[in-house]
């Protein structure tokens, strides 16, 4: 067991964890942040467990929890602002960017990082950005549309608006 200190969605947690515990299980089982999903039995292929590590999208099944010691993690629970869902979340709702919703947390976390670095992406760039996230319902058309809509709203909106 190892004691780690991880800041998750702005709150610092000190927990004793087995060295082999995956970050995704730490988030779900220890912190009860079950918005981060396990879609492919930890095989690293579905992207549903995507979170931000120090602001960058990573798959939380591809890391040990102990590797996050001293780092800041943001999960989908931390995505909304004080005044409710941000533009990316609203765009997924408005553009019907989900059906069953299982993949959605990972896609939101990946795309919020993506849009922060690519504020005016082409559809081609959006599709390339989505390679690491599997959706088995939508065929991605509405997801791409939602990301495009979010990008437009974020560009037009006041600066400093959270994705």
């Amino acid at each position, binding site marked *: 067991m190892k004691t780690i200190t991880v800041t998750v969605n702005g709150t610092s947690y000190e927990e004793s964890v087995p*060295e082999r515990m995956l970050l995704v299980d730490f988030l779900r089982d220890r912190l009860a942040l079950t918005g981060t999903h396990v879609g492919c039995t930890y095989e690293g292929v579905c*992207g549903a467990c995507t979170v931000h590590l120090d602001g960058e999208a*990573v798959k939380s099944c*591809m890391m040990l929890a102990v590797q996050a010691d001293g780092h800041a993690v943001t999960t989908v629970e931390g995505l909304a602002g004080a005044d409710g869902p941000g533009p990316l979340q609203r765009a997924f709702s408005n553009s019907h960017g989900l059906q069953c919703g299982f993949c959605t947390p990972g896609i939101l976390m*990946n795309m919020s990082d*993506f849009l922060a670095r690519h504020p005016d992406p082409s559809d081609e760039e959006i599709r390339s950005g989505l*390679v690491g*996230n599997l959706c088995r319902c939508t065929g991605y058309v509405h997801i791409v549309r939602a990301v495009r809509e979010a990008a437009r709203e974020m560009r037009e909106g006041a600066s400093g608006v959270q994705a």
Partner: protein
Amino acid sequence: MYPSVIEEYLRPGSVSEALAAIARYDEGEAMFLAGGQSAMQAMKSRMLRPQCVVDLQDVAELRGIVHDNGALRIGAMTRYVDIAGETTLDGAFGALRDAAAHVGDRQVRNRGTIGGSVCWNYVASCMPAVVLGLGGTLELAAADGGTRRLDADDFFLGPLETARREDEILLAVSWPAPAARSGSAYKKWGLVRDALPVVGVCITVTLGDDGHCTQARVALSGLAGGCQRAPAGEELLRGGNGDTAALARAMDAIADSVETHSDMSADADYRRQLIRSIGSEVAATAFARARGG
């Protein structure tokens, strides 16, 4: 898919601390963890069952891309995202960006490293073939203070095998200043966008004053034998001026000379066709970059 019990997790802050940590364990009991985008998979499938994981994330001296009078040194812990975004990697080093920009997906590129990839040396991976095709030098350090530099040709021994001893750490991959009019390129084909290479081709060429090729290196990924040079094609590229017919002849020679295999992704004949198709395109790009275009 879950790692077996890990007894100790260490996060050294320097290369010497990392080497001291690994030296405390018997061979096979401790392992370095770089970006983890291959190693975590191997740990979860129990292919690797380390007692001790030595995480290299805090070893700052292993990170970074440094140009020095044309020479290039890329620290082992430099991530794909950093290589893909490094616009100075063009011309002779263009293949590095070609490959890094399309490894896996964004999330993988945010964690995965060039050093982790070449030390793992998986058959269906890009970086080993790129380092081989670019003729890189692998800088290794050992706990006893010894260091050695290996040519890529001597480093990659076969699938999942390299010349790195378990008590050694890969510091960097480096290159001397390339000859004038050198260019390189890499491309792969996989089942979906940015997937593991079913076949990948890396080509480096150097052109003489008259525009004819004086030096050529070709390396392939995705073959069962592991990343490998293709001397039959290199020989045909040398002396040529990069016209389409000559490039096609060189790729035909490669396709006919290497051993390809059949699996669920592609059969052996299709792999040969991929070598011809991708190879011709990659060669044309390498020639264009060598000309400065």
